[in-house]
């Protein structure tokens, strides 16, 4: 019963939000704010159109590449920072400097160097995702119990083995929290970088439609991107649940921007 309720309640929330939108739109009754129903009707048109679909898939591919690279590099760095105070002292201030810089804002600068193509957008996504993953891996590795490491060392595990067989699994719940944040951030950075570079991709469709006053398309794209975010997040949560079922549920703070 409880499980069923927890499954249904997000759906109900979605329906409630859409209903609120519908009522607000009917009440305001302006051309620039279509009703929820009109926007939903436009969704199949966009997904059925070959060019838009290719654009959206391109965006998703860039996002996947950027995310994968970021995860592969950030986790080892974060773990190293968590285990060695020297490494941490070395990288921390630099990361602190970089943290408040909006990564998508580097887009114009990076575009000058790498062009408007895939490379610059993927790089921006990479930069956006890295920081939370590094941060959470760092926190996770730092919280590993010393005793476990001592016993590992006493049993003759080398430094690298300890890293792989003790620190990595122990920090995994925290690392995955970071990856989840990174996933949402990757989507956000993807949309923003395309809004700024305006050459291809989902963000571009969104703003082109807005410039041409096709408000149905604007809101339909918002629905598509929102659904993408929610689906990816839910899928990742399932994966995480499988990987770290043994860990007690931790609090998750979702970071929200890039």
């Amino acid at each position, binding site marked *: 019963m409880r499980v069923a309720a927890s499954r249904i309640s997000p759906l109900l929330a979605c329906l409630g939000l859409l209903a609120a939108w519908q009522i607000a739109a009917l009440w305001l009754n302006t051309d*620039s704010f279509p009703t929820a129903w009109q926007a939903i009707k436009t969704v199949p048109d966009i997904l059925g159109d070959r060019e838009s679909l290719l654009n959206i898939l391109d965006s998703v591919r860039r996002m996947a590449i950027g995310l994968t690279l970021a995860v592969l590099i950030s986790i080892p760095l974060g773990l190293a920072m968590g285990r060695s105070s020297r490494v941490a002292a070395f990288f921390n201030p630099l990361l602190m400097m970089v943290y408040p810089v909006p990564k998508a804002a580097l887009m114009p600068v990076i575009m000058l160097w790498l062009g408007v193509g895939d490379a610059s957008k993927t790089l921006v996504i990479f930069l956006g995702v890295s920081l939370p993953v590094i941060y959470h891996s760092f926190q996770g590795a730092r919280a590993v119990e010393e005793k476990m490491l001592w016993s590992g060392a006493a049993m003759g595990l080398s430094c690298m083995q300890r890293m792989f067989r003790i620190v990595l699994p122990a920090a995994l719940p925290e690392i995955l929290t970071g990856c989840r944040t990174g996933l*949402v951030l990757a989507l956000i950075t993807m949309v923003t970088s395309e809004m*700024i570079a305006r050459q291809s991709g989902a963000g571009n469709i969104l703003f082109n439609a807005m410039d041409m006053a096709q408000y149905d398309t604007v809101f339909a794209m918002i629905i598509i991107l929102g659904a993408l975010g929610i689906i990816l997040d839910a899928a990742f949560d399932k994966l995480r649940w499988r990987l770290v079922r043994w860990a007690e549920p931790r609090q998750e*703070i979702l970071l929200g*921007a890039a």
Partner: protein
Amino acid sequence: MTRHFNAILMGLVPIVLVLALWQALCSFGTAPPSLLPPPGKVFLRLVQQLGNTGFLDDILATLWRLFAGFFIAVVLGVGIGLAAAVSPAVNAVVRPLVQVLAPLPKVALYPALIILFGFDHASKITLVTLDALFPILLSTYYGASMVEQKLVWSALAAGTPRRQILFKVILPAALPSILTGCRIGLVISCIVVFLAEMITSTDGLGHLLVGAARTFQTVDMFVPLITISLLGLMLNGLLFGLRKYLLRGFPEV
């Protein structure tokens, strides 16, 4: 003391290295100055700009949007978070809504916000609020729901009226968690306000960057980026100070 000093010194090394690499790329001619201006020029320009009233107005516009959005997010986030932690009825409504809204890429809503609220401050402030709200709300909620029941009982036993429990026990006990959420929210606000200004704006730091990019003024492109980074550092420092002051009675913060 020396240990602390060493740590700072270690931390300065990579920053200096980055600057040196930047300078080297320029002076050995690997990167043409039109693509990567030398760091000296950029910092000189930054200092010049700080005396320029137009530039200061842009900073003020950005800060005003940042703070307005952030404060609304703090008030809403702490309020809703506390309410959800205390009342099961509110929780039943808020929880599914947050589950749906938190992973939503909020920037995608920006065009809708422009259509609804216009190009001016309102749409940007709303976007900042939306983005900063969820980390603050979630950490308030977790902080408040982790408060030890014994504390509430002892306060009740000591004669605290029921309605004051919220402000006298739960809010202070949840404070560390709330402040962590605020810190994340603040960084996010910095980022979002800049992005919103880059996408559509007529003033603010983000607009400066876009304007410079359109006219290929590379030096002027770096100035707003460095400014927002420094602003973020300063705001973070201020919040850290506030945290230290507010949490002076707490162990290990």
